[in-house]
């Protein structure tokens, strides 16, 4: 009631005031504040009416049971009435909300009404407070206006924003697609097209090292795996072994890989330094594998699957078979199981643990899996750091490279460099997955990340096209399992199987993840193996 008269004069006053304080803005401020005030008043009025209604209802309810029956006019629609009698005067159904009613006595109903009135009152109080607050604000702005009008003393301080000022984000410069990081070293070389010989040599050294580490582990008894070979293979699958195996189906290689995979985990636990070392080794191995080894042999995959089977390998195997083993070697991110049960670690070389990376890695796995069908040894982008990811995913807008805002949104821009083949590969992938649908939940989770992966996959696919691999089994089972494994045959294994992933640092976390799973599941694995063997 009080407020309405105020706004009119205020507004006019503010409008009239043209001063250093920029009258229009101040006037507008006041306008808005007054709007709030009037709004509050309206609301208060409404709530007062509600309160009023409740009062009447309460009164009626309190007196209703006084008589046994009431003569009333019963409404028939809005306009028709017929005389009737109100009986059961002490029986009330109360609307609880959402068309649910509760039957209760008049007295109880009165209590309910009281409770609601409480709420109404509280609301009114709050509204009044808000209104008061804003009334004072209006007063303040009013005073401000007056003061600025009267004396030019009051001036608002302004700071000009330079036109060329840009936010940091705008300075992002896109890498050329598939450009290589400055650090590019041996790894890149490995990835580059076909460098099998080098890779193999380097691999051997690495393998030797890995074997040593593995022995250490075994000596320490950290490895829980029942069957060393199986576990080893499984690890190898997880980390990097599959592709390596693929290359030349050499058992020895597999074993090396196995050792590699095993070693990282063991080393990880035991020796922090060794962890890093292992990670690097794995990287190199993977890289070399990626570049040199185009495809897996089905046998290897199966083995891997079996090994994986410990985790959930049975499914994987089937998946591979069904999916079409033809595609094997895809540039992949390798995940190895580390013995560490609890944490997923990403080796950044700084002893930092990054949990978030898990998803990325999973996505990478998916990529690998998806791309697995047509694997190209071509260029496998090394992803060692988050920055590297942006080298892989670059959007082309109007012929210019634009850094992608989010890697996870692969389809946001169709022009994106990677998008071409990825979709198709993804589709294939989905089809394959269909077989495995039973594990769908994981897949679903993965699907989100899969898009990004797909793009990369596209690249990979291109590479694959260049270097078609015949009959290479897919390492990827199509399902990525994050942490909850119900069945031992989880698709995660395939991903694990591809140690090829360029991202070594991340890889450790993957490994660690896997290791977590593996460690937790060791018993399951064993059981699964036993079953399979039996």
């Amino acid at each position, binding site marked *: *009631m009080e407020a309405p008269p105020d706004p009119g004069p205020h507004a006019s006053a503010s409008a009239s005031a043209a001063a250093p304080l920029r009258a229009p803005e101040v006037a507008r401020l006041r306008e808005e504040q007054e709007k709030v005030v009037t709004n509050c008043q309206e609301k208060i009025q409404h709530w*007062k009416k509600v309160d*009023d*209604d409740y*009062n*009447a*209802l309460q009164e*009626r309810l309190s007196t209703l049971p006084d008589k046994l029956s*009431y*003569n*009333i*006019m*019963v*409404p028939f629609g*809005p306009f028709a*009435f017929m005389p009737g009698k*109100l009986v059961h005067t002490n029986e009330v159904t109360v609307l609880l909300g959402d068309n649910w009613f509760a039957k209760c006595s008049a007295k109880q109903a009165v209590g309910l009404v009281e409770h609601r009135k409480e709420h109404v009152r509280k609301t009114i109080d709050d509204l009044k407070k808000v209104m008061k607050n804003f009334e004072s604000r209006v007063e303040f702005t009013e005073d401000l206006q007056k003061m600025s009008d009267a004396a030019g003393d009051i001036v608002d301080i302004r700071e000009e924003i330079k036109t060329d000022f840009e936010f940091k984000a705008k300075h992002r410069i896109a890498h050329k697609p598939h450009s290589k990081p400055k650090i590019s070293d041996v790894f890149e070389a490995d990835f580059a097209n076909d460098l099998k010989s080098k890779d193999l040599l380097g691999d051997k050294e690495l393998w030797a090292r890995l074997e040593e580490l593995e022995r250490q582990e075994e000596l320490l008894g950290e490895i829980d795996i029942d069957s060393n070979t199986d576990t080893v293979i499984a690890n190898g699958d997880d980390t990097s072994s599959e592709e390596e195996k693929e290359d030349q189906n050499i058992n020895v290689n597999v074993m090396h890989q196995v050792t590699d995979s095993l070693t990282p985990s063991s080393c990880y636990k035991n020796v922090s330094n060794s962890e890093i070392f292992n990670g690097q080794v794995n990287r190199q191995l993977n890289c070399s594998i990626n570049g040199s080894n185009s495809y897996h042999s089905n046998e290897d995959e199966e083995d891997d699957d079996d090994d994986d089977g410990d985790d959930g390998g049975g499914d994987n195997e089937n998946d591979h078979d069904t999916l079409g083993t033809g595609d094997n070697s895809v540039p992949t991110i390798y995940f190895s199981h580390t013995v560490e049960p609890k944490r997923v670690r990403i080796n950044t070389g700084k002893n930092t643990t990054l949990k978030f990376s898990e998803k990325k890695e999973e996505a990478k796995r998916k990529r690998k899996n998806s791309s697995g069908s047509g694997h190209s040894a071509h260029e496998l982008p090394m992803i060692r750091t988050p920055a590297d990811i942006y080298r892989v995913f670059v959007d082309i807008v109007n012929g210019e490279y634009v850094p992608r805002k989010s890697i996870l949104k692969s389809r946001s821009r169709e022009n994106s460099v990677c998008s071409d083949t990825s979709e198709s590969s993804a589709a294939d992938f989905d089809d394959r997955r269909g077989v495995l649908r039973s594990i769908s939940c994981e897949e679903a989770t993965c699907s989100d990340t899969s898009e990004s992966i797909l793009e990369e996959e596209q690249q990979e696919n291109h590479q694959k096209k260049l270097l078609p691999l015949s009959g290479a089994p897919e390492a990827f089972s199509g399902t990525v399992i994050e942490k909850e494994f119900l069945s031992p045959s989880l698709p995660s294994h395939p991903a694990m199987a591809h140690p090829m992933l360029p991202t070594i640092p991340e890889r450790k976390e993957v490994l660690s993840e896997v290791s977590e799973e593996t460690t937790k599941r060791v018993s399951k694995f064993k059981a699964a193996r036993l079953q399979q063997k039996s």
Partner: protein
Amino acid sequence: MPSRGARPEDGAGLVPADISTPHKEDLSSKIKEQKVVVDELSNLKKNRKVYRQQQNSNIFFLADRTEMLSESKSILDELRKEYQEIENSEKTKVKK
């Protein structure tokens, strides 16, 4: 007891129980309404039934004619009083 005809007219939700101090205009209109109600009630035949509407609902409760009449009269008085107060205050304001 041919009350039939009677009820709808009186049914007029007679009793604006709370006289929430509205503006002068609101008040005057309410006063007019109340006047009509009082007139109607006072002109009813003795045997007519009067129903009173339950606030915020469509149910009409049978009420006593004389009671309603007296009640509406008292309400009218209150409204008038209020109206007078507002007018007085305004006059004083003007004088100032």
